[in-house]
Each structure stands twice: as C-alpha cells, then as structure tokens.
C-alpha cells in the first residue's frame, strides 16, 4: 500500500507538471481548437454554461487525466494480485495530486488575471482569453475547484478503467496474443494461409486501390496538393531506399537526380527559355533516362568510395547541381535563379491534366509502378546481392557478386526513380527553380527512409506520410509544429530504432511445409 501510494504521488506530480507546462505554453487552447475541428462542434449550443471550446479543452484535459490515472494505478512491484482496491486507490491519489497542481496553477493565473496583471508580457502565450478559457470563465476559486474535482474524477476513472480492462491484465493478454500469433506464424498456420491465399490478398489490394481512387475525390484542393507532395516523396523515398536501404550506399546528394528529372521536363516542355513545348509523355522518359545516365556517370568514379566518404562526395554533387542551375554560366540555358515557369502538363486521351486531382492519380500510378518494380527487384537475385553488399561487402565479393556492377545498378535505378519523381513534380507545380532542390530535400528523403524503416516498402511509405504529411496535419499548432515534430522524431527513434515498419524477411522455408504449392511461383512476389 505504501509503495502504491508513493508511486501514485510521483505519477500525480509528473502529470501535474506536464499539464501545467502544456498550459503555460498555451497548448491547452490549441488542443481545444484541434478537438473542435475534429468534432466539428464549434457552433454547438453551450452545455451547462460551458462553451463548446471549453468542452473541447475539458476533453483534452480529461484524456490526460485518464492517462494519469491509469499510469498511477500501475501494479507496483511486489504487490499481490488484488484486482481493484489498489488500482482505485492509485488512480484516486494520482488524480488528486494532478488536480492539486492544476488547480493551484488555475488559482494563481486566475487571480493574477483578475487583478489586471498582464501575464502575456512574461509568458506571451498566456493571453487573457486563454486564462479565461482555462478557469472556464468563472471566478479563479471556482475554476480551481472545478479542475481539482474534474482531474481527481478522471484519475479515479482512469484507475478503474485500466484495472477494469485490467491494465496489467490486458497487457499480458496482448502479450499472450502476440505470442500466439507468433507461434501461429512459425507453425505456418492461418497467417500463411491468408498470406498465400490469393483471393484474400487480391481483395485487400482491391480495397486499397478503391480507397486510393476515392481519396482524392473526397479531399479538398489543399489536401490533394499535400497528398501529391507526399506521393512525390514516396517516389523519392522508394528510389533512395534501393540505394541506402538495400545496397547500403549513403547518398546525400539524391536531390541532384530529382533536379535533373525536373529540369529536363521543364526545359523540354516550357515556352521559356527554349520554346520546345514537347509533349509530357516524351519528356518524361527523357527525364528518367538523363537522370539514370547521370547516376551512372557519377557512380562510376564515386562508388569506389565507402561509407562516410561516399556520403560527402554525393552531398557535394547535390549542391553542385543546385548551384550550377543558379549560376550565370547557365542563365541563358536554364534562366538561372528565376526558374522555369509554365511547364507543360500531360494530356491523356485528349484530356489535359490541370487539377491537382489528376496529378494525384498520376502520382499514385507512378508510385504503384515503382512499388511493383522495387518489390520484384528486392525479391530477386539482384535484390539479395544488394542486401548482401550492405551486410558485408568483402564476403559478398567472395560469393561471386561483382559489387561495382551491382552498386552502379542500384545507383542508376535509384536515380531513375528520382528522375521520374522530379519530372512529375515539375509538371504538377508548373514551375521549377534551383531552390526546389536544396540540401533539405536530400536530408528529408534520407530521414524518411530511416524513420520509416530501411529496406522496406511499407516503411518508406509510412515514413513519407509521417515526415511530409504530419507537418501539414500539425499546421494547427503553428509555432509548435516544428517542436512537436522534432519531439515525435526523437520519440519514434527511441521506441522504434529500426524504423516505423522495420523490414521483415520473406519466409521461404516453411512456405512449402504449409503445403502451399502454388506460392512458389508468382505468389512469392509479395
């Protein structure tokens, strides 16, 4: 009991500090607005004298309270398996301490505000409106009492809920389930059957495709633009995934191939500076081809270097391309820093692509194509050679792998994907300039491959969604966007050092034992 008490007090203090901090940086108000957006209840009628905004804030605080309660009611070491008593006790104590912190804070800022002190001169986020929201537009004492009661109640509830669902119980149940599914996998049971059952597999693909088809129609213009950008980054990520994730060559100048694809498209299809006005579908393969050739030309000398040296050289190359595009030397050819405007878009069956939706579909198609190609390459002799090279270059040479040739191949294919992404990117934006190809693009792509999970297609997609999508979603938080984003990255790498979706090995031996004969053929491409 004493241990439980101490644990609950400490948890309460920690959560008290967290909540107070969130208030002091003005996050309570932002969170309330976000919940408001989410619930679409901004114009709802007041409930018990509380405006919708206050209710939204209370939802946010309530969730924290529940979390605190469930944490505070954790089973303490050496505790007997008494189901409910200590949990309720722990939740209650945690909630009480948590509530005390917050109510003291509410009392303090409420009183100061009532006395006319302008807190926002010291803490610029604490505007009078925020304070008013925090004490729920009541007197400071009422507000403080309300918080105390509210957080104690949610803490208690959290404690009961966690034990009711059995915090330790559901964790052990989850663990058990996980173990069961693992053993199922190793026994090649139902999991393998589902995986190798083409009907189920293809219907899942079908559903995903339908969702992908419907998504752009439902999303607005802004979201379609964002989806398109994420898509282009998925393309880049999948390309770099081959170079970094599979072949293990750290390429920090990947943006160069992206730039070459984009500028090829721009110069061939734009009215200025050359007035060539070529068709998109002709310029596209030329862009891809040029990027590939550049990849080979750069790779041939540079890939003799390893590790850090390779990273530095490619980094320099990426910057070189950008600076070259900006320089006076090429102004007559590329319009220099002014960039190339009015880049042509594709037409398909006489229908010009002019909305973001059209481009989203085009990008989806490109991504699907790239996924298909990557998947096939990865699960082939070539892909295995790449991974072997990444694991141990010397040994892979002794296994008969011509490492130079395979590295060049990986580099060229990665460059081709980047060229494709660049060409589509330029055509969609209808403008491209040297500043589109800054070092940050390379770094972002490397980061998304690492965060998502190296050498893994779903991982790369998840990484692109998180790195390029999340900042857009977090736009609500304005100034804290970058802070929260950074914190999320740190937390992510701590919790999942191998990436969001770590790459898993294809099962090959038990497949046959499961009696699934036909999977030896095409089914293995999954």
């Amino acid at each position, binding site marked *: 009991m004493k241990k439980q008490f101490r644990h609950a007090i400490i948890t309460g203090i920690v959560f008290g500090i967290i909540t107070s901090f969130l208030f002091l940086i003005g996050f309570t108000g932002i969170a309330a607005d976000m919940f408001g957006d989410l619930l679409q209840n901004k114009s709802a009628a007041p409930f018990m004298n509380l405006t919708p905004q206050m209710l939204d804030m209370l939802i946010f605080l309530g969730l924290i309270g529940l979390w605190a309660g469930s944490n505070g009611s954790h089973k303490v070491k050496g505790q007997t398996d008494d189901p409910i008593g200590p949990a309720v006790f722990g939740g209650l104590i945690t909630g009480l301490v948590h509530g005390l912190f917050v109510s003291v804070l509410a009392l303090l800022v409420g009183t100061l505000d009532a006395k006319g002190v302008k807190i926002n001169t010291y803490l610029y986020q604490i505007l009078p409106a925020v304070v008013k929201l925090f004490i729920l537009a009541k007197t400071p004492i009422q507000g403080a009492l309300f918080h105390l009661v509210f957080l104690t109640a949610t803490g208690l509830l959290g404690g009961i809920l966690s034990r009711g669902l059995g915090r330790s119980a559901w964790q052990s149940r989850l663990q058990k389930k996980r173990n069961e599914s693992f053993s199922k996998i190793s026994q090649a049971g139902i999991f393998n059957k589902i995986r190798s059952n083409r009907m189920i597999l293809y219907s899942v693909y079908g559903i995903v495709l339908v969702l992908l088809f419907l998504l752009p129609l439902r999303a607005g213009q802004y979201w379609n633009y964002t989806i398109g950008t994420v898509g282009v980054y998925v393309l880049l990520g999948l390309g770099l995934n081959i170079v970094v994730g599979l072949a293990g060559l750290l390429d920090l100048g990947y943006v160069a191939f992206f730039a070459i694809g984009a500028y090829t498209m721009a110069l061939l299809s734009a009215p200025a500076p050359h007035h060539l006005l070529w068709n998109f579908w002709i310029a596209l393969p030329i862009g891809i081809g040029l990027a590939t050739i550049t990849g080979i030309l750069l790779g041939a000398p540079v890939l003799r270097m390893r590790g850090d040296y390779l990273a530095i050289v490619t980094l320099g190359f990426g910057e070189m391309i950008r600076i070259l595009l900006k320089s006076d030397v090429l102004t007559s050819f590329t319009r220099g820093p002014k960039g190339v405007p009015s880049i042509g878009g594709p037409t398909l069956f006489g229908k010009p692509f002019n909305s973001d939706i059209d481009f989203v579909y085009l990008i989806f198609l490109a991504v699907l194509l790239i996924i298909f*190609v990557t998947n*096939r*390459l990865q699960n*082939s*002799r*070539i*892909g*295995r*050679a790449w*991974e*072997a090279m990444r*694991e*141990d270059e*010397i*040994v*892979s*040479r*002794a*296994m*008969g*792998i*011509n*490492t130079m040739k395979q590295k060049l*191949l990986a580099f060229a*294919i990665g460059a081709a994907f980047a060229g494709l992404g660049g060409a589509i990117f330029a055509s969609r934006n209808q403008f491209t300039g040297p500043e589109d190809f800054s070092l940050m693009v390379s770094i972002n792509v490397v980061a998304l491959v690492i965060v998502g999970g190296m050498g893994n297609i779903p991982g790369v997609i998840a990484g692109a969604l998180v790195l390029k999508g999340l900042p857009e979603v977090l736009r609500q938080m304005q100034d804290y966007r970058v802070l929260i984003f950074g914190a999320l990255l740190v937390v992510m790498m701590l919790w999942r050092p191998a990436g969001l979706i770590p790459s898993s*090995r*294809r*099962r*090959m*031996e*038990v497949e*046959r034992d499961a009696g699934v004969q036909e999977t*030896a*053929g*095409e089914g293995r*491409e999954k």
Partner: protein
Amino acid sequence: MTIALETHSLTKYFGGLTAVDNVDLIIQENAIFSVIGPNGAGKTTFYNCITGFYEPDNGEVLFFGKSLLGLSPDQVAYRGISRTYQNIRLFANMSAMENILVGQHSRLRATWMDAILHTPRVMKEEKEAVEQARKLLNFVGLAGLGDQLARNLPYGAQRRLEIARALASQPKLLLLDEPTAGMNPHETSEMKDFIRRLRDELGITILLIEHDMRVVMGISEQIAVLDYGAKIAEGTPTEICCNPHVIEAYLGSGAASGLKNTEAQPA
C-alpha cells in the same frame, strides 16, 4: 589424379614483413589438405592470395591448370573456389535461406530486367534455387531454421550455415578457415565428421586451416606447416607430428608424444 590447386613460390609482403614466403603447394583433387602453423604464420594471408583479395607480389596460383592471378574475388568465386572465415561472417540481417541464396549468386543468371519482368526462365531458376537452398539446409542439419535471421542462430549453427553458403555456389575447392574455432569437443568431433562428408558425398576438394590437432591429424591426408610465412614441412599426419622443425615451431616438445597417443586411438 588431377591437381586441384597449385601454388608456385607464392609470396606476399606487407611493407617489410614477408607474410607469405615462397610457398609451393600441390593439392590433389578430392583431398583434404590442412595448413597449420602458429598464429601470424600467414595462413589466412595465404587464403586471401588464393581467393583474389590480395594480389601476390610474386609467384603463381593455378586452379585446375589455369592461373588465378589478377582475378578479382568474384571472378575467383565463379571459377569454383569458395571459402569460410575465421570469425564467422554471415549476412547477419538476412535469413538463413537468403544467405544460401546469395551463395548461389554466381550460378544464377537473372538480370535486373528478368527480375522485373519475371520471365519464365528466371522463375524456373528461382524455384530451383530455393529448392537447392532447402536441400543444403537439410544437408548441414539446419532444416526448419531457414527463416531465422542468421544472427539469431546459435554459434554452431552459424558455422554450419556459413559452410552451407559456401557450398551453394557448388565449388570445386572449399577453403575452410578454422571451422572448429570456439567449439566444444562434441561439436568439434561433429564438425570433423561433417568435413569428411563434404569430401566423400559432394566430392569437394578441401583446404583446411585449423588449430585443433585432433581434427587436423584425424582427417587430413596431407598437411603443410607454415611458420613466418614459409613452408617448413609438408607430409602425412604421421610425418608431420614427428618432424622436429614442426615440433619446435608449433607443436611444442611435449605435444609429439601426446599426439602419437591420439593417433593410436581410432578417431
């Protein structure tokens, strides 16, 4: 009898140090040939000269009559020489099956276009490769562990997987570098039988670096002793363990009598 591997006055310098000093060896096809010697005697350097990792400074290496000099390690592998390493060097984050499939790299023909298009020829080749890998897993006694990551396998299994990977290229000559290092007596004796099986069942010529004298004396037909890079003796196990140079350089004076006792007992 055909000669599998021949070296003529093979020499390799590292700066002022002569790591391999005028070594002449002749290894018959289908033999088990051991190279022994104290630490730093140049045994592994000798391997590296054969497999193309080092360019010898002097001398000649002939593999079934054809010179290996100037070939890169991957070309040497194509010719049919495969090796394992003193410290196990598996592709740690790949599954056991994949390790063996990488070992088959030099036998497979699929190009990147084939891989993308899944041409029937390649699908057939891939199917056979997977089948072959399963067989090899069975052969080295790792059936059922094929989908484990290499780094998760127990030590002995890693050693055997490394040999399976080396066998995957269907080599004519297999270079083993201390295959029983770090093994207990029971595992060592299993490995000894296993090496003999490689030769008897697969007909592979085996060149062996080993420190465990029970293994060396038990299975080799010929033994060469290196000391300071130079070959100081060559002969059958009985000849070697009585050779005074060898005893002085490597075995130690107390060892000779002990080894004779070991020899007397059936291995």
